[in-house]
């Protein structure tokens, strides 16, 4: 088995979807619940500059090992954000504290598991920044590492230039079409136990929903959508190969 610190992680079971969400501020058509509704076209945005919170609460304790974010503009506004959890007495910082993104990159922050019934994102941005996708929950640690053929989604992003030439041979203004990276994520030789208890729930949940992928501590995490799961196959007795193809974006 590979070193656990370098194994891929998948954030798919978003406990925000079962929480009561209370923002400190939200625009009329940019509600806080839109940040955890599995869509990117709807997003949260506060009504004013400065520091705002999005608080989530549950009736029971939740295990939280990571939070993720995609579809924000905090780097453009020199903003920052962090996750705090209620430890029974006070708000405590989750993980490594506040983050000031460089741009609009996908974020994936991990920590030792905590158990709480209240968390809150604290967002500081002037002017106010939107957030399209937030995740909080217990992420899936993969049992094996990635196989050859995988490429960092940052490198894999590409664009198609459609050139134009006049009848007289002059180069004319062209256009660029984004070609979203769709990449295969394959894990070979994972145990049947892990496949049944960890992979299968993920597969069942994410055939129609997006999720976050962290694959290497030196590389950027990505936001995955439109996943198509591959047919699982036995590699040997008690072990299977699993995988999916998905559209992967990093910012």
């Amino acid at each position, binding site marked *: 088995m590979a070193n656990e610190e370098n194994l891929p992680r998948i954030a798919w079971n978003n406990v925000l979807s079962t929480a009561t969400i209370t923002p400190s501020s939200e625009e009329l*058509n940019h*509600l806080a*619940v*839109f940040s955890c*509704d599995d869509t*990117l*076209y*709807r*997003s949260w945005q506060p009504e004013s500059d400065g520091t705002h919170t999005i608080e989530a609460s549950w009736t029971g304790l939740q295990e939280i090992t990571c939070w993720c974010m995609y*579809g924000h*503009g905090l780097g453009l506004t020199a903003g920052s954000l962090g996750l705090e959890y209620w430890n029974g007495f006070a708000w405590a910082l989750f993980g490594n504290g506040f983050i000031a993104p460089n741009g609009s990159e996908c974020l994936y922050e991990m920590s030792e598991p905590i158990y709480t019934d209240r968390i809150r994102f604290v967002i500081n941005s002037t002017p106010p920044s*939107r957030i*399209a996708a937030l995740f909080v929950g217990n992420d899936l640690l993969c049992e094996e590492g990635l196989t050859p053929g995988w490429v960092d989604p940052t490198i894999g992003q590409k664009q198609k230039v*459609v050139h*134009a*030439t*006049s*009848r*007289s041979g*002059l180069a*004319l*203004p*062209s*256009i*660029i*079409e*984004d070609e979203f990276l769709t990449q295969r994520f394959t894990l070979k030789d994972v145990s049947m136990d892990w496949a049944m208890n960890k992979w299968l729930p993920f597969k069942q949940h994410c055939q129609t929903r997006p999720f976050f992928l962290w694959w290497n501590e030196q590389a950027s995490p990505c936001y995955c959508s439109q996943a198509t799961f591959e047919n699982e196959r036995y590699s040997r007795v008690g072990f299977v190969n699993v995988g999916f193809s998905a559209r992967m974006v990093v910012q």
Partner: protein
Amino acid sequence: MTLSGERESFTAKPLSFIEVDLDWVDDTVPAFNGDGTPCYKTPATTDNIDALTIGTRTRRYCDTTAAQVWDLDAIPCIDGIRYQTTQLKVGESLGSFGQVTITLRDFVDDDRLEDPFYSQRTHDTAAGTYFTKLHARNPYIQGRALRVFAGFAGEEYNNANFEERHYLIRSIKRTNKSSWQIIGVSPLQLANLRGAKAPKPSGWTLKYNIGLGSTTAELVDYSIADDDPTSGYCLISDEVCSYTRVNNVLNIARGQFATTPDSHDAGDGIQPALQFINTPVQEIIRTLLVDYAGVSPALIPIFDWNNESNKWLQLYSLSPLPITEPVDVIELINEICEQVGLFLWYDEIAQIIRLQAIRPVPTSSIQLVTDDDLVSEVAINPDVSARVSRVAMLYDKRTPIADDGKDASYRKRLIGRNFGDGTYEHGSESLKVIHSRWFGTNDDAVSGRTAFTIASTLRDGRTLYTFTLNKRRADLDLGNVISLRTRDAIDTTGQMKTLPAIIVKRTPAKDGLSVEYIAEPFIYAARFIYVLPNDHTTTYPNTPEATQDPGWFLASSDGTMPNGDAPYVLG
């Protein structure tokens, strides 16, 4: 960056989206109606809407495949935008009408943005889809505003990077289980679809018999509408009368316009007629569109129309006989376009209906298009079947009730000059007969002009030039006059020749990289002169438009003298 900057850019990212304005109750209303049904603040779901202020609420949708543009706030559900753009038919008719068809992918929606009272009621998120619910709550959408934005995404959303085209919704319908289709049309198309007629069909009905000599007639009360006319001409059976109306009583003068007085029975219908007396042609068109077709007056730039007409159509102040039977408004306007020599089209960007006479265009406003701009060859498609070598004008109608389509219904016949039917030309005559309800007994000059213009313009039929331009030239639009200079059009010596043409159709390519155009030769066949003041020293080609128009030059139809000289200045 601006739209023109993006069109010049080599790294532009095309993006299209639409906006739809649907009715919306602006006032504060409760979440539930009196009968317990949910209110969604649309007229169809709200009680007592007559007492409420109705505004609009805008929805925005974009391509499913487009790059994510965060600040656009559009639902990515457009699978396709198909333009069936207006094709002008210069000097013939209004032509086909512009239309855009948008295919939308349906999806499950939680109603949070659509239900204004979301928090006040329970929701079954599995019930219905976004568009099924939207349609159920907004069953009446014909005529509502639809805007199509085509442009470029840029780093972030910027409205200046988009060309905005305005339509009215004709219909929204489900095309299959998961797709909907919105069709947007121009206001002219909507008038056509509504079957607008002039004069308006009337329900006036005689209450009692009237005899030969009667000068009053009483109408059945319920047959009178509030906006019915109070004076004018009317048709009772085959008799035209003039009338003045007070409530339901008509004072009538019998047997007008050479019709024969007759007795009429109770229950006979009476049709008020439409009459224009010495009315400028642009005013006739405006009346037909606004008063009879329901086109908004805001779409008609009457100041521009008057300018155009005063300069080029002054001969056409018309006094036709009253029109006593309802006729399609579009048919009437098509007749005017052909007989007067003008064309109308809906400018989707400026949201106005443009009117232009067939006339010479100032050199300064002609745009040169060459092989440096073209990304396709120019397909030149002549249609000789549309050839007209001679026009016979039939006008001065005998009575308002005469059959418009019969030669015998007209007192005057003018046979125009022949063009292109010589032995060594097309070799045969192609006669076009025009029955004109618009030209009267004093309109010999304009009838002759019409006969000359049509035959000289169509002596070789119609020709269409089809070509594709890079997005750099996508600003060219309907009605623009161009000089097309390409190796696809060669003169007798093998040199490229310049084709003066008017753009009659514009269809953007799906990828945003190019635009397909269709143009027709733009020929002003009549001779014309420009006259300049005595102190005018410049030559014609160097003369700015502002001084060309008030000045006088002597020129042939191609803007030169017969020997090829520039036009002579008269001073």
